[in-house]
């Protein structure tokens, strides 16, 4: 980051003769721009340290010692500074730079992706010399080279602004591209056979000021002037990164980051950026499907037929034998519609947006929340309790990384294994699986007494004492779900212990899409909309919903267990894929087989639907429907409809309304806007979500704050006593999930199955590294490559959650505190 445009009295400067109030410490280029004077630039980027390389931003600056040419991206404002942005000297210098940049530039604008939105092209048209004075031959490089699976580099077009390389190094922390060579022969490149394999590579395409870096999914697809854009919110994870969705002729062709100061600073993960490809893939469900009784196949049907089949099943079943799983994919409005349908019309509280893969919602909703900015406060102390932000919530990872690297924040991680932030963490503690609460007890005791009694949960005393010392003052907690191979209980208990510490605030980082919106809409057992317990919300809902369930229902684990023994008649999968996402694959399979009817509402036929759905209702995707999204902070921002849904797919809330009508009820709304106004009635929390508030903050969104739920008492489980190897299963950025499978640019990026063990634990395993091993539990087994990894606790074996061909949930028994495994050579 640049220019700590700090607080304090304004600095008076003159820009082109006019008095201008600049912020103290502000860079001249910024001060001018904020005041309507745009200084041309190529290398300067407001989210990265200035390098002053391109020299395009030269202006005449006089600080009392006479005018001189200065790069405005390097100079900070000073009282009484006089700036001429269009002095003869500045204009000459800028034109000179432009000419220099053009002499070796191929000028292939007509075939360049950047043509039409290229600052170099624009500047040249505006100011550039008409005719080239350069008669020599231009520099030549081999034409575009693929520097990663998605990014291509055309070195002839490159103007060496250092943006991509700075991004890779400073922002992403993946310095896999570098300047090579020197002087006129300088080029950007990767090392021999090490591609620019960064989760964030696409950002370089966005910030490249020319067309040197292009993204495979967009290359040659459109010209900028054919595109229209709408600001929306990324949907693949829960950070709520702001994006611009760009389409042409009813097809989304590109997604770019929008600089929301409070959220993603313009950066995106490649998954957020390129995930739209899946929406346009052949695998999309474009109309309803029903299971053909004769062949057992899913075949197209009319909406009337499909809905009728669904409603027949629903109306036959007693309310407590109906369950709705999933919903994190939906907009807030659709979530509310489904909550109303399930709880208010059907009358079941067996509703759960998580699949036993998150944290208890009452805990999450009860904790005092921190914003991303609060967590990333300069000089702050951050406790990471849970998973790996780099793998799970990439754009949040970038903020956390920046806080530590550039803003002096201290990071303490308490995670099941090393994370992408471990290299930056002041303290890394990796407790034995199932013993996070143990460790937290020891930490808090050490913090209280100033000394640690001894080791705990496999972490040594010195490490605990050191981390405890850092917990002395104020801190925030980034709270997620660490390993899926143990119950959430231990981590939840640890969080509850921290919540007992006065001013501590939490940023919940449950990964799945709009899971926070789902909680707020009440898509969890025992909850009503608005961070309210069902019991407490009944009165308020009474006038709005036809009915309200009397007792809290089952959570996903209980629903699936019940279904597997035939106690569920209708199982609705609202974008849920229990087979792949529930912790216990065997239970999920039995549940799908044992449920009376399975109704899937989805964009794709996922593995669970393929196995068991009787009806598949085609839902509209995130760029195909209007609504809002709630991020990890509780920030609500718009999701824009940019294209129409394929075929006859419809918005989830319309599907809910249709089913309700067929069940004889009227949900009472006919648009997302109407749903929002009902939400404001049904929930205190959502009252802040007015059309005016949304309109007033189109980029940063509207923060919903406050909670009606007290911190629940969470019992810490007793740490298991066994001495076997315990499984750690954590999420990875790329896995075998249904969305990624349908995304051409990320297909193939999922790493093959790996079983990682600490070198100190190798002696317990009768196999050599890099060979295939079988990891077995009482439940099942999977085959993976054995990898030595110092970041895995000594008593553990770490695997990815959904590695292709080796789903970790084959090993796990739902509800066991830990999963014990053995590893042997194959």
């Amino acid at each position, binding site marked *: 980051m640049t220019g700590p445009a700090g607080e304090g009295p304004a600095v008076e400067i003159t820009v082109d003769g006019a008095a201008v109030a600049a912020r103290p410490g502000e860079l001249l280029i910024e001060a001018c721009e904020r005041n309507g004077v745009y200084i041309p630039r190529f290398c300067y980027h407001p989210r990265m340290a*200035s*390098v*002053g*390389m*391109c*020299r*395009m931003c*030269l202006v005449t600056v006089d600080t009392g010692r006479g005018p*001189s*040419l200065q*790069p405005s991206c*390097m100079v900070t404002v000073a009282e009484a500074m006089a700036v001429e942005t269009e002095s003869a*000297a500045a204009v*000459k*210098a800028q*034109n*000179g*730079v432009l*000419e*220099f*940049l053009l*002499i*070796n530039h191929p000028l292939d604008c007509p075939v360049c992706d950047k043509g039409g939105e290229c600052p170099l092209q624009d500047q040249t048209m505006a100011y550039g010399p008409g005719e080239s*004075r*350069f*008669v*020599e031959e231009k520099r030549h490089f081999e034409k575009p080279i693929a520097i990663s699976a998605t990014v291509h580099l055309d070195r002839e077009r490159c*103007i*060496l602004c250092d943006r991509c390389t700075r991004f890779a190094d400073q922002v992403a922390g993946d310095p896999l591209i570098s*300047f090579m*060579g*020197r*002087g*006129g*022969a*300088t080029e950007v490149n990767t090392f021999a056979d090490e591609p620019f394999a960064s989760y964030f590579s696409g950002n370089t395409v966005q910030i490249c000021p020319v067309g040197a870096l292009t993204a495979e999914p967009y290359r040659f697809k459109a010209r900028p002037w054919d595109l229209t854009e709408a600001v929306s919110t990324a949907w693949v994870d829960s950070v709520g990164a702001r994006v611009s969705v760009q389409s042409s002729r009813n097809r989304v062709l590109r997604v770019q980051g929008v600089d929301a100061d409070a959220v993603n600073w313009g950066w995106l993960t490649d998954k957020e950026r390129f995930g739209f490809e899946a929406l346009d893939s052949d695998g999309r469900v474009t109309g309803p499907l029903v299971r053909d009784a004769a062949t057992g196949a899913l075949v197209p049907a009319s909406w009337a037929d499909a809905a009728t089949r669904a409603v027949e099943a629903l109306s036959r079943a007693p309310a407590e034998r109906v369950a709705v799983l999933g919903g994190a994919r939906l907009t807030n409005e659709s979530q509310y519609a489904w909550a109303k349908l399930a709880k208010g019309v059907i009358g079941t509280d067996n509703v759960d947006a998580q699949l036993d893969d998150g944290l208890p919602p009452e805990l999450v909703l009860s904790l005092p929340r921190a914003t991303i900015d609060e967590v990333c406060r300069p000089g702050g102390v951050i406790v990471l309790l849970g998973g790996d932000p780099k793998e799970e919530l990439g754009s949040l990872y970038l903020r956390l990384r920046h806080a530590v690297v550039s803003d002096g924040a201290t990071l303490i991680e308490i995670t099941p294994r090393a994370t992408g932030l471990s290299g930056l963490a002041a303290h890394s503690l990796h407790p034995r699986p199932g013993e996070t609460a143990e460790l937290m007890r020891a930490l808090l005791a050490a913090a209280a007494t100033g000394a640690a009694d001894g080791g705990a949960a496999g972490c040594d005393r010195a490490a605990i004492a050191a981390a405890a010392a850092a917990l002395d003052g104020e801190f925030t907690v980034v709270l997620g779900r660490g390993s899926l191979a143990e119950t959430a209980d231990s981590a939840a208990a640890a969080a509850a212990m921290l919540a007992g510490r006065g001013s501590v605030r939490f940023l919940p980082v449950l990964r799945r899409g709009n899971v926070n919106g789902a909680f707020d809409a009440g898509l969890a057992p025992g909850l009503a909309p608005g961070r309210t317990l069902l019991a407490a919300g009944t009165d308020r809902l009474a006038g709005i919903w036809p009915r309200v369930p009397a007792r809290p229902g089952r959570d996903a684990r209980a629903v699936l267990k019940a279904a597997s023994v035939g106690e569920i008649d209708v199982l609705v999968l609202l974008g849920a894929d229990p087979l792949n996402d529930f912790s216990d694959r065997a239970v999920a399979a039995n549940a799908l087989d044992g449920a009376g009817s399975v109704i899937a509402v989805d964009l794709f036929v996922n593995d669970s639907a393929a196995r068991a759905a009787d009806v598949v209702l085609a839902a509209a995707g995130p760029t195909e429907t209007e609504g809002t999204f709630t991020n990890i902070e509780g920030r609500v921002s718009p999701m824009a409809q940019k294209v129409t849904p394929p075929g006859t797919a419809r918005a989830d809330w319309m599907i809910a309304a249709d089913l309700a009508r067929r069940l004889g009820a009227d949900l009472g709304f006919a648009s997302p806007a109407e749903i929002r106004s009902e939400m404001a009635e049904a929930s205190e929390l959502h009252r802040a979500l007015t059309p005016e508030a949304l309109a007033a903050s189109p980029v940063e969104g509207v923060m919903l704050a406050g909670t009606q739920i007290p911190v629940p008492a969470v019992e810490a489980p007793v740490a298991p006593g066994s001495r076997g190897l315990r499984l750690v299963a954590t999420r990875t950025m790329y896995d075998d999930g249904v969305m990624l499978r349908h995304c051409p640019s990320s297909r193939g990026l999922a790493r093959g199955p790996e079983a990682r063990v600490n070198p100190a634990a190798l002696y317990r395993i009768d196999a050599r590294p890099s060979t295939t091993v079988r990891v077995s539990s009482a439940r099942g087994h999977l085959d993976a490559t054995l990898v030595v990894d110092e970041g895995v606790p000594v008593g553990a074996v770490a695997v990815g959650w959904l590695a292709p061909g080796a789903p970790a949930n084959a090993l796990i028994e739902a509800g066991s505190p830990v999963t014990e495994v053995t590893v042997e050579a194959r």
Partner: protein
Amino acid sequence: MAADGYVDHAPGYVANEGPKIVTGRFGYEDSHRLARFEATGGYEGLLRALALAPGAVHQQVRDAILLGRGGAGFPAGVKWGFLPPGRYPYYLVVNGDESEPGTYKDRLLMERDPHQLIEGCLIACYALGLSQCFLYVRGEMALAQERIAAALNEAYEAGYAGRRICGTDFSVDVVLTWGAGAYIVGEETALIESLEGNRGMPRLKPPYFPAAVGLYGQPTIVNNVETLSNLGWIMANGADAYRRHGSESSPGTRMFAVSGHVRRPGVYEVEHGVTTFRELLYGDNFARGILHDRELKAFIPGGGSAPWFFPEHLDLPLEAKPVGAAGSMLGSGAVVVMDETTDAVDAALRLVRFFARESCGKCTPCREGTTWLERILQRIADGRGRPSDIDLLLDVSDNISPGPYPAASDEARGLAAVAFPPRQTTICPLGPSAVAPVVSTIRRFRSEYEARITRRDAIPVKAAS
């Protein structure tokens, strides 16, 4: 001269008459050995310094008005005073990257008298509380590296370096490090980048100068090899003795390499400020006139980066101020002499090609501009010039270094001198340096350009020998 293995002419060095402050031992075959060094007053300066308070040592250096020898001529004592108090550790980085065209002195100092340099480093570290010294030698100078390594090993062994130096509580390591071939690394911030393991690209300034933010972001003193080599003598003999040589504003001596078309090219230790170019080029004690009795055409007074002087400037003294006012610089003590047979276009091309090859590539005007200049000059030299090329050269130059470029006066054409230094659109002065030969030659020898462009056979293409 004296017995004891002293020879008059070590390879690449001529012993002229006059005070010897830094070259005194060069004539000895074993000048690089500790024994010789100790036998000729070596490490006395260090011992003197250690007997004083660090601040007093700094004061001596201030009083001596020891001007930096790396090119900019900034007084070392003043530069040392820029260290922000209390922000330890401070580092010393020794600039032994000597690569400026025409410059040849630091290599001699490193090869022939490494202990003198080490002594200087130690004195600087002692005076300023510098915690570690990195002696950065140009990569190509294998012998210098070997000699310094050997000298350091001797110094450590003898207790002159490392822990508890000479039994005092002064402890500092002098670490030999070296580059791998890049002229720009001589620029002090690029040198620091290189020492951090990076591409040697200069850092942006302002606001960073190494004394405030240097190696690893810590306060760092960067001094040239010759600058530091003076310190032993200054401490041993005192600032007053030092100031008795040279002129009031430029005391002491300086090493000058006189190369090109002279009878006796060589590296001379010359009294600073009082000697003139005429004495240096023609004096018996120095270069003894132009080769083959030819006429002097032009000379570059301070290394390839300096604008050119002509015969009418011979009476300028070897002192920064008057030379700067006359439109050039003393720079790195490199005087390149060109006789009447020298082809101006060809000579300019050599120098411009150098800067184009050595541009780090960071600044657009330098990276693209120097290459472009080289290609235009090459075209003209190859007989494919266009009449518009002369103006193009000047305009491209102006986009690298805007405004009137420093130049010597030319009374015949009624042109006044433009004082040094040039302005720049770039971060460091390398890009603008490439303009020096272009502007110098076009201003003075425009007709040669025109002839090369219009009459291809008029001027011999090759430099005479």
